[in-house]
């Protein structure tokens, strides 16, 4: 017996449907089928996850996926979702898994922060007529420079990387996403002179050609890590935590570990790829320092080393410790960050908002006079260029985009990535599905997104009378809070609107 009703209904407009079967062939969840007795296309809504693939491909716009109005009695405490989750667990006895970031209604501080613009006293700048710099450098900055008599720099400069825009692609491993998806991100990173991130899955040989634009990750499972791999990347990122699942590791089920994944991760085919919750060689800041310096040593001190941590309660102190341990870049991943698969309870209840974490970290590093020793990169639901501008004004050097880049490539946020049936060819290794993502088409869409955001960033900066992103960085005077408490304003380090 089935205890829960389907979440969605599939409405097929019979006046329009031509029974072409496109929807039936495209739905990997088999929610549409061709009735062989009548030749008509029919649906089984219990299987639908609302990924919108059929809706987008139907040539007659005959389909509509709607929320099933047949639900249990309204109850402000026992929401439909809460009841459903109990029913599901009663049926399976297992922990609940989800994909993407938390859909819960926590405050989005980006939407409670407003930007400034110039009026009368200092002129705004028109980015279409005047140069507007968005170039960003990541890595530690020297505190002072010494020159010889000819004007050559004597100071030994720490390694930095240059990006044309303060946007990079978040860590998404080959394994969690398809090679075609990762390739599209790599191609977009190359074209926009920024970086994509291998996630913890190693660098597939086909992506070697994009290594100049790769951030190579070292996570607790050490998948795909070798001297060669580390030296191919431009930044090495140690992943301590992830916003969607702070405190736990990862688990790529054996079914997804096909030949390609196994070769890239350097693990046996069809074996579960389990990343332990902690790095088994890191139990203190001193241990972290050892790993950071081992990685620097192996890359001859030529590449910045980043440490990625999930935004948790004590984030400022952890970030400070990581910088002191030698991290050139601190990556903070907020609690709204996405994932291919995460325990629902962790995703929805662990961590803190990225906006507060960023403000706290930037302030702490300034107070301790070590802010220049690192760059700050944030991740965890950066939805548009205004979020980016606000993040930079709060102190970030650059932002990672993950979900937005996936949406650009077709993701419709159905949050069922963990099933491996992604109809858009993103979160799957099934060749029937990965084929649906043609990198030649999709990389251009990611490039478009980055270009569009960069233009908007320039527009917003111009409005504030700022012509270089460096002048916006940490410029919290450009921000005002709206509807925030004294405490929230204090943590964000901004004034209230009207002040």
């Amino acid at each position, binding site marked *: 017996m089935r205890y829960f009703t389907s979440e969605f209904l599939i409405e097929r407009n019979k*006046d*329009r449907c*031509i*029974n*072409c*079967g*496109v929807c039936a*062939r*495209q739905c990997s969840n088999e929610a549409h089928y061709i009735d062989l007795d009548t030749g008509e296309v029919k649906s089984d809504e219990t299987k639908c996850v609302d990924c919108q693939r059929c809706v987008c*491909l139907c*040539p*007659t716009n005959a389909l509509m996926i709607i929320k099933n109005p047949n639900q249990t009695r309204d109850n402000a405490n026992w929401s439909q979702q809460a009841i459903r989750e109990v029913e599901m667990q009663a049926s399976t006895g297992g922990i609940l898994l989800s994909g993407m970031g938390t859909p819960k209604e926590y405050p989005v501080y980006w939407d409670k922060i407003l930007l400034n613009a110039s009026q009368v006293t200092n002129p705004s700048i028109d980015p279409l007529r005047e140069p507007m710099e968005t170039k960003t450098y990541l890595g530690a900055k020297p505190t002072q420079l010494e020159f010889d008599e000819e004007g050559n720099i004597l100071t030994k400069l720490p390694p930095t990387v240059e990006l044309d825009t303060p946007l990079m692609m978040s860590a998404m491993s080959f394994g969690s996403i398809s090679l075609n998806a990762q390739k599209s991100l790599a191609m977009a990173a190359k074209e926009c002179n920024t970086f994509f991130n291998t996630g913890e899955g190693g660098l597939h040989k086909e992506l070697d050609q994009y290594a100049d634009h790769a951030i190579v990750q070292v996570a607790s499972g050490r998948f795909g890590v070798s001297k060669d791999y580390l030296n191919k990347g431009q930044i090495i990122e140690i992943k301590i935590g992830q916003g969607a699942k702070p405190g736990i590791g990862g688990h790529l089920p054996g079914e997804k570990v096909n030949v390609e994944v196994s070769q890239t991760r350097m693990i046996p085919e069809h074996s579960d790829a389990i990343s332990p919750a902690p790095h088994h060689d890191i139990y203190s800041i001193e241990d972290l320092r050892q790993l950071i310096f081992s990685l620097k040593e192996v890359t001859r001190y030529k590449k910045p080393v980043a440490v990625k941590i999930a935004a948790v309660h004590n984030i400022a102190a952890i970030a400070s410790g990581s910088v002191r341990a030698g991290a050139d870049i601190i990556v903070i991943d907020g609690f709204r960050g996405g994932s291919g698969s995460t325990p629902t309870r962790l995703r929805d209840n662990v961590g803190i908002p990225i906006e507060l974490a960023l403000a706290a970290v930037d302030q702490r590093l300034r107070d301790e006079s070590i802010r220049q020793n690192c760059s700050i990169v944030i991740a965890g639901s950066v939805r548009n260029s205004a979020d980016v501008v606000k993040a930079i004004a709060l102190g970030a050097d650059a932002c990672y985009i993950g979900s937005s880049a996936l949406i650009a490539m077709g993701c419709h946020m159905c949050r069922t990535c963990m099933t491996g049936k992604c109809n858009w060819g993103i979160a799957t290794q099934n*060749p*029937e599905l990965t*084929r*649906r993502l*043609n990198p*030649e*088409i999709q990389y251009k869409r990611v490039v478009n997104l980055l270009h569009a955001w960069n233009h908007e960033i320039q527009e917003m900066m111009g409005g504030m009378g700022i012509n270089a992103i460096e002048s916006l960085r940490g410029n919290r005077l450009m921000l005002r809070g709206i509807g925030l408490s004294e405490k929230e304003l204090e943590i964000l380090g901004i004034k209230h609107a009207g002040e």
Partner: protein
Amino acid sequence: MKKVYAIEELCLNCRLCEVYCKTAHSKSKNVVKAYKFESPEPVARIMVEGDNAHSIAMQCRHCADPACVNACITGAMQKDPVTGIVAPDPNKCVGCMTCLGACPYGVIKVNHIAMKCDLCRETGEPACVKNCPNNALIYVEEEELQ
């Protein structure tokens, strides 16, 4: 000459090319009307073979020395000396199916008269190529192929 080429690795088996080919060869040029209301029902001249694991769209190759033209008993099937497009003259075709049997690719259909890809010569823009969601069909000169 420019021809339509199919890329197997990119084909999704969605068969939208068939839908839009049929529509392009309808009177109304409207998908719903083409499928539901037109009589005689228009015919798609592209056919997708295979299943979701492996599929490929097939249509006329507009051969240099077309077997269908050579076989045609009435002289209806002709290769245009200027465009290179192979197409039957509907006024001459008697629907005898000789061309259908002669075509080595099996891409001619007969519905009273022979129906085959005409590279959308009416519009000059092949509808299958335009509407393929994954760029699995390309319209290029043979030399540009690689």
